[in-house]
């Protein structure tokens, strides 16, 4: 069966070449090359279309070693690590294709910006630990001569996850795993919670896990701009466009058991009429027919299109990277006026103070402190059944009234008198299979790599994932953090790597 054919052994051998060999376009026919040269010579002659004096330096290059689809935090992180780990320096030309340079709908810019190690899968914990180390030393990693240092405004306040009776045992085992990996997390009983955070109502809470160090929240926009600035100084090229299709060639091989397998190799990446050649695109998948493609990383995929056009449905089981999952956030603050009631005068009840961590309730609603002026940022992700239309990023205020505010007000009584100041919605690159990222090479497309599907924790894992993908592209295997559980193979092998702590 195709399953056995695509076991890791075969895949790694085929794909493990990295960027060592320069194959060029040897698979295309020689006649095509000759006719191309003929056309070029014709355009030079008097009636041709060539204009040598025209400045085309603003165009992206025609040839590039690596094309990264998507210029959010994951794409830029991959570009950074590719340039940092390449040997010798300057060997690889990297091109980042981003459709919206203002990042108006990008998940990175709309993210709450939290970073935590409280996951259930050890690889996630390691990714997050490295990312924290990257953020702590961000001015060493992303230093550009003559430019001001970055201030990502990290709040080391920690995460507080609350569990009911049902989830207490799972939380305990998760904390054990987290501490084994080196996260500084401790468990708290309800009495300890009340002593430490007097504003909390511990009804229904059986156990809480609290991150003491390396957890908190920061400014994702600053990280994005810092990465952008640094990769530009390292020589990464940018293209403003949306990738529309790939042009690839296919070759047929036989597996050890005699199965026919079609392997593809992408030669051209087309984006908005501008054509350039690539040896090794890094992104979402490339189907042979042209539906719109999936950008990498946090920018949500096109709605309605399954992420992988290559595998037919029956082979992969359920859907893979599902279009979008919406997270709605609202800011809350001072007195709230219920409809029909006058505002109570001077009844400004104080909310949780400076020590407030990022609190995640057992129901899935979360909040954190924002600034010093009694403002908080909170929200909740809708469940899969309540998922609204992904194309529409309008805020649903009823969602706040019904799903976000009641659990938060029950957990923190001071929030009964709160007022919404603003709200926005953003995308999760949600993996419906097991809520974990997809990292690594495509089994059937020889020169394509994934870095997507992080289901809400892409920002906090971006530096580490970028390094892992760069290692895979340059060396053919993971070097520092072993992300083999996150390879694409797990979809058709049916091996779930379920992440339980998803907000």
């Amino acid at each position, binding site marked *: 069966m195709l399953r056995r054919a695509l076991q890791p052994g075969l895949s790694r051998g085929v794909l493990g070449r990295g960027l060592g060999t320069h194959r060029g376009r040897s698979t295309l026919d020689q006649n095509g090359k000759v006719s191309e040269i003929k056309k070029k010579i014709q355009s030079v002659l008097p009636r041709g279309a060539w204009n040598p004096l025209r400045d085309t330096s603003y165009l992206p290059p025609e040839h590039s070693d690596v094309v990264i689809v998507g210029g959010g935090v994951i794409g830029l992180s991959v570009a950074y690590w590719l340039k940092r780990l390449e040997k010798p320096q300057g060997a690889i030309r990297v091109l980042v294709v981003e459709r919206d340079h203002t990042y108006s709908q990008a998940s990175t810019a709309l993210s709450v910006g939290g970073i935590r190690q409280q996951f259930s899968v050890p690889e996630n914990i390691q990714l997050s630990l490295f990312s924290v180390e990257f953020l*702590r030393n961000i001015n060493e990693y992303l230093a550009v001569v*003559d430019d001001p240092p970055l201030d990502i405004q990290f709040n080391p306040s920690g995460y507080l996850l609350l569990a009911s009776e049902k989830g207490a045992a799972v939380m305990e085992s998760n904390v054990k795993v987290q501490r084994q990996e080196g996260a500084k997390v401790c468990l708290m009983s309800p009495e*300890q919670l009340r002593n430490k955070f007097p504003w909390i109502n511990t009804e229904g809470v059986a156990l809480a896990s609290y991150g003491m160090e390396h957890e908190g929240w920061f400014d994702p926009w600053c990280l994005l701009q810092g990465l952008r600035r640094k990769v530009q100084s390292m020589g990464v090229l940018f293209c403003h466009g949306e990738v529309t299709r790939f042009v690839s060639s296919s070759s047929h091989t036989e597996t050890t058991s005699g199965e026919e397998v079609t392997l593809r190799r992408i030669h051209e990446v087309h984006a908005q009429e501008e054509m350039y050649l690539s040896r090794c695109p890094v992104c979402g998948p490339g189907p042979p027919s042209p539906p719109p493609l999936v950008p990498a990383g946090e920018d949500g995929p096109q709605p309605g299109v399954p992420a992988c056009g290559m595998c037919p449905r029956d082979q992969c089981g359920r859907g893979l990277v599902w279009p979008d999952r919406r997270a709605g956030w609202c800011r809350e603050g001072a007195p709230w006026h219920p409809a029909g009631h006058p505002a109570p005068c001077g009844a400004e009840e104080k909310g949780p103070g400076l020590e407030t961590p990022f609190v995640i309730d057992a129901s899935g609603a979360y909040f954190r402190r924002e600034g010093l002026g009694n403002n908080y940022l909170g929200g909740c992700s809708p469940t899969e059944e309540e998922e609204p239309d992904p194309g529409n990023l309008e805020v649903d205020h009823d969602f706040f009234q019904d799903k976000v505010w009641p659990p938060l007000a029950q957990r923190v009584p001071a929030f009964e008198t709160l007022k919404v100041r603003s709200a926005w919605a953003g995308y999760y690159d949600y993996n419906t299979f097991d809520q974990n990222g997809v990292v690594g090479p495509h089994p059937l497309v020889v020169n394509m790599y994934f870095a997507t599907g992080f289901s809400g924790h892409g920002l906090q894992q971006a530096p580490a994932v970028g390094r892992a993908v760069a290692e895979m592209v340059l060396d053919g295997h993971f070097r520092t953090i072993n992300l083999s559980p996150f390879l694409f193979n797990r979809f058709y092998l049916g091996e779930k790597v379920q992440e339980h702590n998803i907000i």
Partner: protein
Amino acid sequence: MAAPRAPLHLVTPVWNRGTRGTRGLSRAVAPEGSQKKGRSLLQFLADRFYDVQALREYLLRKQVLKVHQKNRPFTYIRERFGPHAAGAYFILKQGGAVKFQGKEWIRSDARGHFSLDFLKFQAVPVEAVDASGCAINYQGLDSVCEWAETAGLFICPSVVGSRKDHSASPPPPTVALKELQSLWLQRCPHVDDWCLGRLHPLANSLQELSLAGCPRISERGLASLHHLQNLRRLDISDLPAVSNPGLTRILVEEMLPSCQVLGADWAQGLPSGPEEQSRDTASPLPA
């Protein structure tokens, strides 16, 4: 077939990198002050010559490595003489001062030399550390408050109260300077918010902490001081990176109720009273 606007090349071109236009984002802030002329010449050269750029990047990296070298851990001393001696040696090497329990202050002299007698005090804990002005950073604080403990469930050190026994009682963590009572980090240029998050293992013993004059500490780092419930004196005066000193001081006082907070006057930053407002409208600058 190339698009009509694309350049005509019969051979694959080498893409020129680093023209002025593509690097627009990297010139965010113009250099200020008297170094403008010298700085812009260096910038000019760095933009045009890879060698100059590489040299400047090398010099920048060297500066960073210098700080790292100063904060390296002294593992041999720790294994041989114990965590207290190692922590004391580290602080003295940086140019600070250390006080062991029942002994006098030990300082390094102007040339950085200090006596090694304290290596004989094997089990005497360090009571106070004065690291003012030292180049101590996050990594260096490992020598002061490292959390090294064996696997097992653990109670927050700052929480007082009973706990449901989910498993056998866990072993306590081994902290480098367990009984440190005073820590002075005044005017340390590399102590930032991350370092404050590192101080939580000292919660049981630390009673006095001074952060006056540290340029990188902001109110976000001060929020992580709530672990230190035994703190009695906290000095947060003159922190340039704190956006709202008066309000921050109030919030810190609420966070640590039994601690005396020395810092900005709470009225600082408030708008002036009515008797001064008439004068303010006359003068162009706000009070």
